[in-house]
């Protein structure tokens, strides 16, 4: 198991109710696990607690069967690549330089990047479809291009686990599909992925397992067909939905207009 987080709880200062209440998540090699749920449901908090950037009030996290707290940030960055929800640029770089930052955890302090590093950067840029942007400054990129550059940077880390917080939020259909296809391909190469997304339908088609969070609690953890049930979703999202099925067998969620019923 690459990641095993057990009974994680997080309490923000000044709040009496926990932002995360005893939630467990595990990701195996080659597995794509999607975390879904309404805004403020605890998805990003779960990632923060899992990665150690948020203090846990309870629970345990193990990476490759070793307690998270025993990992140095540098060692952890060689195992886990993360694309956070937001990132502001203070000093814009060239795309190639930006992706190259993903190699830093593998470089000695004053050593220049070697051929293996150059190759990993080029490969990451190719896979994330940003090779053509190599010399562009990051402050001239569109939201979607910047997002793909950040995915490339995480890939340049050559991680065993990718953690992505809404990586397709700013992407159009083509680039969104490319990211999901890329993630699926990486999974077949043995990389585990923990993905926060609002795209229930794409998650249903690509994820091996889904976790549905609501008000900091785990509502259900299972295969997409077990998680995406009309009654559960309507209750959690406070909006009526119907569930249909795509030709590949994946359940698909149709939000209903006011007055509509599933039967049409």
């Amino acid at each position, binding site marked *: 198991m690459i990641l095993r987080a057990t009974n994680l709880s997080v309490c923000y200062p000044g709040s009496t109710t926990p932002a995360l209440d005893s939630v467990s998540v595990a990701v195996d090699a080659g597995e794509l696990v999607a975390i879904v749920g309404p805004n403020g449901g605890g998805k990003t908090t779960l990632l923060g607690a899992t990665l150690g950037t948020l203090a846990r009030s309870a629970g345990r996290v193990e990476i490759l069967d070793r307690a998270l707290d025993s990992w140095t940030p540098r060692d952890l960055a*060689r195992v886990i690549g993360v694309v956070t929800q937001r*990132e502001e640029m*203070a000093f814009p770089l060239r795309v190639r330089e930006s992706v190259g*930052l993903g190699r*830093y955890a593998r470089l000695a302090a004053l050593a220049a990047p070697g051929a293996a590093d150059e190759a990993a950067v080029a490969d990451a840029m190719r896979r994330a479809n940003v090779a053509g942007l190599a010399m562009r400054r990051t402050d001239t990129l569109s939201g979607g291009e910047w997002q793909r550059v950040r995915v490339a940077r995480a890939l340049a880390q050559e991680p065993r686990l990718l953690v992505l917080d809404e990586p397709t939020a700013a992407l159009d259909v083509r680039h969104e599909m490319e990211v999901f296809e890329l993630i699926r391909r990486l999974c077949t190469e043995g990389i585990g992925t923990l993905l926060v997304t609002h795209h229930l339908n794409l998650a249903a088609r690509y994820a091996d397992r889904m976790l549905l969070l609501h008000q900091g609690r785990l509502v259900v953890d299972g295969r997409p067909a077990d998680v995406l049930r009309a009654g559960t979703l309507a209750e959690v999202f406070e909006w009526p939905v119907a569930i249909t099925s795509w030709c590949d067998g994946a359940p698909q969620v149709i939000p209903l207009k006011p007055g509509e019923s599933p039967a049409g």
Partner: protein
Amino acid sequence: MRRLWLGLGLLTVGAMIAGLGLGAVRLAPGAVVHGLFDTNALEATIIRDLRLPRVLQGFLVGGSLAVCGAVLQALIRNPLADPYLLGLSGGAALGAVLVIALGLTAPWALPLAAFVGAGTALLLVYRLSLVEGRRMDSHVLILAGVVVSSFTGALVGAILSLASAAQLRNAFLWMLGGLGGASWPSLLILAAYAVIPLGLLMWHARDFDLLALGDETARHLGADPERLKRLAYVTTGVLTAAAVAQCGMIGFVGLIIPHAIRRVAGPLHTILLPASFLLGGGFLVIADALARSVASPLELPVGVVTALVGVPLFAILLRRTLR
């Protein structure tokens, strides 16, 4: 990139020759070289005993301030940071003004008091900037710097308003910065303080690329942001305090030099830090040479020259950046 290093190398050599040649007694480049290598030459005393320590000290101070500026800009993720942002200068000024007002004349008294003042401000700002007892917050750090600066500024104002005219002039000139007190012993003291902080900052140059992305991203890419911020704060604090103690407050070097290098060579710190050191050093040596020669035999405070040259340059850079 080769052209950058070649240009900076030529600038360094040119600045050294200008710094050694200009002053109350003007020396041609040939005479400068002669004075440097021939102890019996007429120029040897001026060059070796007076100007060489001054030029080297100017280079070290200018380079250190530029490196500090670059690192602090990464630390608070704002290109407008400079080494005096964090309140050190206010503490140093308070120490120096106290010595002047008390009439202490020992040569070590003023640098020591300025260093102690800067160090105290450093500790105070650090303590104020800790959030939840241990995490260093960049925004709170800036506010803490402003608070300490304002308070020490008020104390300096109170002391100066009670001081005599001569004390007022001395304090004023000290605050504008100058390299007039440079000597071999003061250079050695400064170098002793500068070597380890500069070495540590260069060693961690890559980590500052990550720190500039924000704490969370930096951590995910392998840096330890809290440790790095403490290291950056303490090393730049010691460097700035040592520079201010010896030379007063020399402005604009720490602000504009990193800007200029970023425009030419990009923001990666493995290049930015050493290049800023060379450009900052060369810039201050040339500014000091001008300060000594434009109103010779009188001297302008070098801080006035760096601002007179720095402000227009900064304005041009700013316009080009915004365009």
